[in-house]
């Protein structure tokens, strides 16, 4: 893969586990998936970022990897709040669920959400990134 030809400009990772943010950043960078990675350690932080930058198109991510199991506000709670953000934000961002959950209920719930376009199981690997880039 051409390291200069990024799939996405900005990719946000919402995950409470530091190791997963770390791994994601490494994998995304290595495979030139994103030019810039925005790790967020909680759903609340991610929402504030999006909300703060709703008018700043440049700062908004093109893609969000969203974990489900997080303390205080989980992935689905995030999606409920995300719904309230202006169209400008939702139009730009693609959301991919990235979870270690194998519950069919979780997958179903995520795929039924209009803002979620994919559901991936951890860990994030090069193969899975290919699926995201070329669905």
């Amino acid at each position, binding site marked *: 893969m051409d390291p200069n030809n990024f799939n996405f400009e900005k990719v946000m990772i919402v995950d409470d*586990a530091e190791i997963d943010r770390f791994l994601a950043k*490494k994998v995304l960078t290595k495979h030139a998936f994103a030019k810039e990675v925005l790790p967020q350690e909680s759903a609340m932080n991610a929402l504030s970022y999006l909300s703060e930058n709703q008018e700043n198109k440049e700062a908004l991510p093109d893609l969000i990897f969203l974990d489900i199991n997080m303390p205080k506000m989980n992935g689905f709670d995030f999606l409920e709040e995300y719904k309230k953000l202006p169209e400008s934000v939702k139009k730009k961002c693609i959301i991919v669920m990235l979870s270690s959950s194998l519950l069919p209920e979780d997958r179903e719930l995520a795929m039924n959400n209009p803002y979620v376009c994919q559901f991936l199981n*951890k860990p994030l690997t090069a193969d899975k990134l290919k699926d995201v880039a070329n669905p």
Partner: protein
Amino acid sequence: MNVILEQLLNKHFAGNDVPFHPDLFHELDILLNGAAATLPETGKESPATGTPEELYHILWETLNLLGTEASPMMDGDETLHSIVNAADMLYTGCRNIVAIEQQTLRETVHLKTIQGVAKAGSWDVPATYDLSAVQNYWSDELFHLLGIDPSANKITYEQYIALVHPEDRGFMMEEVSRAYTETGRYDTEYRIIRGGDIAHPRTVREIAEVIKDEVTGEPLSLIGVTMDITDIKQAEKAIVEANAELRTLFNNMNEVFFSVNVEQDRTLQISPACERLYGYAPEMFMKDPYLWFSLIIDEDKKKAHESNLQLSQGEDTQVEYRIRHRNGQIKWLSVRMRPTLNVSGKLIRIDGISSDITERKEAELALTNSELKLRSLLENSNDAIVIINEHLDYTFATESIGRIIGYATEEFVGTSMLNYIHEEDQGFIAHSLFSLNAKPREPLPFEVRFRAKDGHWVWLEGVATNYMNEAVINGHIVNFRDVTDEIAYRKELEDANDKLKKTNTELDRFVYSVSHDLRAPLASILGLIEFTESETDDEDIKQNLSMMKDSIRKLDIFILDILDYSRNARLEVKRTPISFSSLLTDIRNSLKFISTGNSNVEIRINIEEDGTFCSDRSRIIIILNNLVSNAVRYADPAKPASYVEVTVVARADGALISVKDNGIGIHKDYHQYIFNMFYRVSEKSKGSGLGLYLVKETVEKLNGDIQFTSTPGVGTEFKIYIPNP
């Protein structure tokens, strides 16, 4: 004296039309005047009547006229005395006349009344064929009877004939002429047209006798009585008709009428219905007066005997007994009898009616039996039945309430239901009563606490139904039983169940979070190992990392199996239509991510499905996932083309799934163990020992069946049947 005479005569003149000789009046008049003048002054000559001798003479003449036959005796010195005597006699004579006249008058009135009441007119006509002859005498009643005004007192024979009904004139006249010439009398009936009303002729009976001249024997007159017998005739006709009807009844009624002369032991009459009732003709009963008794079955003969005793004491009886019909059938009879006693109190005659009451008796017996049955069922039942009236008082209760709430029916009936209901159930009761009143005849189930006699609360469960409009019931019928123990047990069970549910939910959440929390770090480690692998070319490091990966995968699969097991055991079966093709595609894809590296195993899929098969999707996935991944995992490396072939036939009645591989196979020594929990065939086994156990458990949860054949070095085939519920 003369004053009394005058009064008597005056009375006579005033109210009497009986003829009285006019000369007598005249003579009496003179006599009285003379007497009046003479008597106060004895010995003096009356200017009007002459001497006392003349007066005496006149008195005697008068007496003679009145019928006194004695001759006058004139005693010179006693002239005055003789006159007084004669006057006394005259007075007596006059009194007799008046008395006789009064009697005649009374008799005439009597005769008139009798004729009016009897509607009989008497008459006397001259014996002649002359049509213009008029009657000698017609009584008033005859005029009335013929509808003619009595003032038209002369009627010709012709006029009379005209009153006779035209059809009857001929024979009526013949009767008259035959009486003149032969019989001297007649007694006949004919119709007359009263008042010209031909539509309603009256019938008369006429009895007449010819009066003949004593010397010549020639008919002088015809004297007769004509009676209106129309009403009598009608009454007679009605009696005849009623008699005929009675006779018809007597002959045709199902009941047998009979009369017995007791003194002579003789059956006087018995109606023909006896043929039906007893099977014997009336003649048989006539011939054998004891036949009826011999037909009574022996057990009931006593009853008949008792009834006879009652009859002999003059009492009416009604007795029911069984007889044996001539055809052998036993019949129930009801016999009502009335005795007739003679003056000395001896029974001489019995009249009675026997009727067949077999059907009624049998119905009664059946009723009694079923009543008895019902009663004993009710009394011995664990259920109680009570009736509550509109004032909520108990009007009926079965004895069985004693066993349930301890009360005897006598002390319970009449009390108010509200006395017994638990405070907390009063609202429920009010609600139930409202529903009952709103919907008659609709059973309403209930469950309430009821205070038993010993003060304990008893849970009663039952059904109440509104039969207020049913006259016999006139209330709510409530049947119930004691469910105190059941309720207590149920409450315990419910509590336990609630606790279990809570535990189950907690466990499910626990398993889920444990598995997630366990798997999440594994996934992270795996991701980092893979990333590290891609960062190095050092083969030693790569091999180490690969072994670490295998180990982590194994742990991950183990966690997943435990998760599946836990979910299979506890989650409800949720059925949806199953698409095996999409399901197997998913499985194939997920195998890529958790594969053990044997990506060279070919997965062949043959599916025959019509979309009608329904089952629990996640459980089907567990089954297929485990079997397919086992086949991939235990592929035979010695074979050039490893494969696993999944064949599915899914229809509305169920699904047949076959998972067949050409892998290493399982030795038959282990066949009996492979479905055991945590069983692993060898140390080379890469799994958790849960996979096949899980498959079997899941198949069973879906009410299916699993079989397998396996030969080491050849391969393994699992065959599964899953029904479509």
